[in-house]
């Protein structure tokens, strides 16, 4: 034994201040390693900044909209020919007639203010007003038939191209080539803006209004989609988190380790790799055709997304449960806690950060998912708001990602801006959803 002591490599005693070459190398490696970490985080953040700035850059415009303010004489001769003020009769007047009314009103007003350029046809003037405006005016009148015969001050959305002009999307040059707008119209719009008849205003309709058709991008909003997404997320959250955590607790803590549980384990891992659209196929077959639930409804969407999210919650939750040191379990079992108590009192709180991370990521994905909704009829044009829950779960609804998806496919470039705006809304939605989880996660985090 003593002989071996002399075998110890006798070392010279270098100064602590002078770092020896090997340590220098190791420190360099350390620095590099750390740098890789910084670079990795930096890369991620950079990507985030690039993506977000492109989204913000093209999407913020959606929250402001050009609005024309005009005086509209509600001509009784047009709106109520018989003069009976019978709602049924008034309802017979279609939006086409209202459109004409608006066009005439604007032309008259512009003529009066001497803004109308010579040679501009009333049709071109009418073309500057959104096609949504007649419907709004009609609803106004139907709600209050007494207005007929009076002149009302009416805020109408401007046509998407006019709006685009003030947001820089449409220019005089592009208007020359554009078959949907003319430079004269743009000049007129500028003149109107100078005269205070037209203004860029915050646009609540973008958040609250329902989708609109291709002809009126300026009126398209996210109201139905936000409700639909909220309903679905409610279902997903309420179902997938408890079920996912319960399943992972069973698999990690209770299940006997045998072939069958191996099967479940592989199976769950595999479910995570199933393309989301296949869950749509499943949803169509199981919930709509077999279960008889209604098409396009948020309940089916929520259920499908729940199934899709489950494995994505179970896998991280299991990893988190596994990482709790056994000594903690021993300690609890040793004072006579039951297994269930041990898990719920000690293991679960310690595993909570990992579980919440899984939930954050799983729900983020569910919130942004479109493909499975394709097959269950939620990728749709829905204009009526779903009712309040629980009945509303069964009404047709859209979802924010669906709205983004369909807006990016539309021909009018104004929808690109709206799609980016919708992405902003989606991200805000996501941040609101996540922030709670993030706060909770920080509360549970500790080292031992």
């Amino acid at each position, binding site marked *: 034994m003593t002989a071996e002591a002399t075998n110890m490599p006798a070392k010279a005693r270098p100064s602590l201040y002078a770092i020896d070459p090997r340590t220098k190398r190791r420190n360099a490696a350390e620095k590099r390693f750390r740098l890789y970490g910084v670079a990795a985080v930096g890369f991620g953040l950079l990507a985030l900044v690039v993506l977000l700035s492109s989204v913000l850059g093209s999407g913020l415009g959606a929250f402001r909209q050009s609005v024309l303010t005009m005086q509209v004489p509600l001509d009784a001769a047009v709106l109520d020919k018989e003069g009976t003020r019978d709602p049924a009769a008034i309802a017979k007047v279609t939006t086409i007639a209202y459109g004409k009314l608006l066009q005439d009103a604007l032309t008259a007003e512009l003529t009066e203010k001497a803004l109308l350029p010579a040679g501009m046809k009333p049709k071109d003037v009418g073309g500057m007003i959104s096609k949504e405006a007649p419907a709004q005016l009609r609803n106004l009148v139907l709600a209050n038939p007494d207005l007929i015969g009076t002149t009302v001050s009416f805020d109408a959305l401007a046509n998407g191209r006019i709006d685009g002009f003030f947001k820089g999307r449409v220019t005089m040059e592009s208007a020359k080539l554009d078959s*949907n707008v003319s430079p004269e119209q743009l000049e007129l719009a500028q003149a109107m803006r100078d005269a205070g008849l037209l203004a860029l205003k915050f646009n609540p309709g973008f958040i609250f209004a329902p989708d609109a*058709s291709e*002809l009126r991008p300026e009126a398209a909003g996210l109201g139905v989609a936000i409700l639909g997404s909220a309903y679905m997320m409610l279902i997903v959250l309420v179902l997938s988190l408890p079920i996912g955590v319960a399943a992972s607790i069973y698999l990690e803590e209770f299940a006997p380790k045998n072939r069958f549980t191996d099967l479940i384990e592989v199976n769950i891992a595999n479910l995570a790799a199933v393309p989301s659209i296949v869950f749509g196929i499943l949803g169509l077959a199981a919930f709509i055709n077999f279960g008889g639930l209604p098409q396009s409804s948020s309940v089916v969407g929520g259920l499908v997304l729940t199934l899709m999210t489950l494995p994505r919650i179970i896998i991280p939750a299991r990893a988190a449960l596994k990482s709790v040191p056994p000594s903690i379990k021993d300690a609890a079992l040793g004072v006579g806690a039951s297994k269930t108590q041990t898990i719920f009192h000690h293991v679960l709180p310690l595993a909570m950060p990992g579980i919440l991370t899984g939930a954050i990521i799983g729900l983020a994905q569910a919130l942004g998912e479109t493909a499975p909704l394709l097959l269950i*009829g939620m990728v*749709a044009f829905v*204009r009526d708001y779903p009712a309040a829950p629980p009945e509303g779960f069964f009404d047709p609804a859209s979802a924010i990602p669906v709205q983004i998806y369909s807006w990016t*496919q539309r*021909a009018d470039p104004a929808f690109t801006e709206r799609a980016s705006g919708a992405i902003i809304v989606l991200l805000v939605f996501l941040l609101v959803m996540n922030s709670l989880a993030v706060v909770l996660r920080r509360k549970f985090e500790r080292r031992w």
Partner: protein
Amino acid sequence: RDQIQSAGSSTVLPYATIVAEAFGENFSFPTPVVESGGSGAGRKKLCEGVGENTIDIANSSSRIKQSDIDTCKANGVNEIMEVRFGYDGIVFASDINGKEFAFTPADIYGAIGANVAKDGKVVANTAKTWADVKADFPAQDILMFIPGTKHGTREVFDTKVIEAGCKATGAYDLFLAAAEGDDKAKEKAAVAQCNTLRTDGTSVDIDGDYTETLSRIDANKNAIGVFGLSFYQNNTDKLRVATMDGVMPSVETIAKGEYPVSRPLYFYVKKAHIGVVPGLQEYIDFFVSDDMAGPNGPLAAYGLVPDPELAKTQEMVKNDVAMGPLN
């Protein structure tokens, strides 16, 4: 269920939404729900059966197929109404700053057909630039974004452009001569040969939609893309359209039948649901009314080529005439 539900082609989708929106505004019925998801899926959904949780209308950018009708029958959907409400024009366009092109089908085939006729022989297509195809074209690299095979547009592109071009260049006859079997098999083989396109990256299938094609043209300025007329009309400031056989594509030229590449658009109504789903009859009447689908209606304004025989369709819809067997 109170609202009408329809599903199907994404080409028909914009028209259907425009009508649905107007319908919802002017009638006391709820706004119909219009799903996209493809003509095939739409027709499949239509044929799933009758009842509340099946759809009422399938939008389709191509005519229904016998197999769909069979499925329908098997599931108890015996009567469907076929409604053709207009035409969709298909145009070729490049970036707004790109060169001007005046195509014929033969040029397109000569550019992206896998095998072309050269001096009476079939040779592999090696053209690199458009100048290789036709001398008076600019020497710009050939790059075409064509609709993917999932799209109905591709069918039209294949028959009206590629096959036409194949025949025009004489390649078809050479293929036919080289093919074996009886006449029918020969023809089939020749057509298949015509439809075989280059895979070296000169022709790129687009499985997405026209916005994707537009973005790709944005990223590849010297590419030529295939678009729907309505899409082009909304983006005239970004795209420079090419003529085909010397004709400029427009609603008028297509309606007159001068511009060769177009296709009819349909929707199919489940007759059993008429009278059951509130507003269904009103909706289809409204859809084909002159206010909507007529030459001055919003659909035409958006780019639909109105059906010259619209009056006939209106009559048919009014009387709920179910479609006969496919011819």
